[in-house]
């Protein structure tokens, strides 16, 4: 599955990563897999203010991913 990263996560991991996971795995499972492979990005991935997005909509950790879903991890956002 294709996973996209933004901001400091993209800097640490790259803007895109192919992550293998079982069918209907959850967002939390993908996050932990990425965190295990990229320990330098783990704390940002697990930050309570980081966001997970599928199809341009925010999703929760227990969201089950379907094939073809594009998952994005967003570090804490800040404008202004």
């Amino acid at each position, binding site marked *: 599955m294709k996973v996209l990263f*933004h*901001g*400091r996560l993209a800097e640490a991991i790259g803007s895109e990563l192919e992550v293998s996971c079982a069918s209907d795995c959850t967002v939390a499972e993908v996050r932990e897999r990425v965190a295990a492979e990229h320990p330098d990005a783990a704390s940002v991935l697990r930050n309570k*203010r980081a966001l997970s*997005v599928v199809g*341009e909509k925010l999703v929760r950790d227990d969201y089950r991913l379907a094939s073809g879903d594009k998952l*994005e991890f*967003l*570090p*804490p*956002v*800040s*404008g*202004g």
Partner: protein
Amino acid sequence: MSVVARLEEHAVHPEQELAALLERAKGAGAVVSFTGVARGASKSGQAVHRLVLEHHPVLTLQSLQNIGGEAAAKFDVNHVHIVHRRGNIAPGEPIVFAGAASIHRRAAFEAADYLMDRLKTEAVFWKREVGEAGSNWIEPTETDYADRERWD
């Protein structure tokens, strides 16, 4: 009632945005606006050469529109106006213009304050300062989050 929410690749001109807001606000009686400007020094006092605002191709503009729409619904305002820069911003250049017009000054002040508290913590950007100290990501402070929570 109208909401303008724009993501701007090039320089933001606050005087032009204020003129546009005043034009829309005819008869409103009260117009309040805020302009955020890029600083030339970091919190620790080191020189900043530029601020970089990374954005999301879809969610960034959507977040500006949502914040503008929710301000318009929450306060007794006629017009809400948000323009936010993206990309490389030099010290002294405007980052954001946020304004509101109302028949009552209090509502206009509160709406502008609310807009900025939401923008600081919820507008979909990732900011980093590039300068003397290298490249450093800037995230909202606990005070920023507390300011945001005042409105719940």
